[in-house]
């Protein structure tokens, strides 16, 4: 990299994982009640995608 390459995008994403004693469905309900938008439900990995932003530089 760096040969004929420039940084062009900044991408940020985040996954929320339930705390001990909290289920994924409990966390989904908490997010919905708080108005937090859930972008993806990944039940296989027990997590929820909460951010996914790509900014062109």
């Amino acid at each position, binding site marked *: 990299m760096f040969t*004929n*390459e420039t*940084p062009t995008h*900044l991408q940020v*994403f985040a996954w929320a994982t339930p*705390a001990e004693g909290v289920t994924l469905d409990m966390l989904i309900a908490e997010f919905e009640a708080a108005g937090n938008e859930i972008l993806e439900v990944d039940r296989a990995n027990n997590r*929820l995608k909460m951010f996914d*932003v790509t900014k062109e*530089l």
Partner: protein
Amino acid sequence: MALPGSGVVNQGLQRTGINLACVGGGAAVGLPQTTSRYLMTMSVDDNANNFAAADTALSTSRGAIVNMFDQLLDGLATRTAQTISFTCTLGTGVANFTIRGIAWHDDTVANVTAASATLIAGIAGQSLLKTSSFSLAITGNILFTDNS
């Protein structure tokens, strides 16, 4: 909808070049150098204002930061093909406020403040009320594109 005015700030681009060229390195040219500053810390805050290209710190143009939390990355940044990745996992007991700004810093110490001139990149305009019900793994990617 236009994305918030965020990204790699001017200072961040300068730091990339400084580290690549070991500007001010302690040893003579041709010898291994030690990099004292590198992208090591992530911060989150509840300030709703966008970052500006000329910002050098979290509060440079965004004003006072009421709630802010910073933490070392989970590990050194990694690279796959043309993408550099850096991740920080916020535990259940920390950063429990509405996360609106996310930023990355280089520094010689682990802890940064809202006024530390360490800002490399940032994304504003998010809104996530973090609570003790979950941990949050935040990943930032800087994508390089082939211009040839």
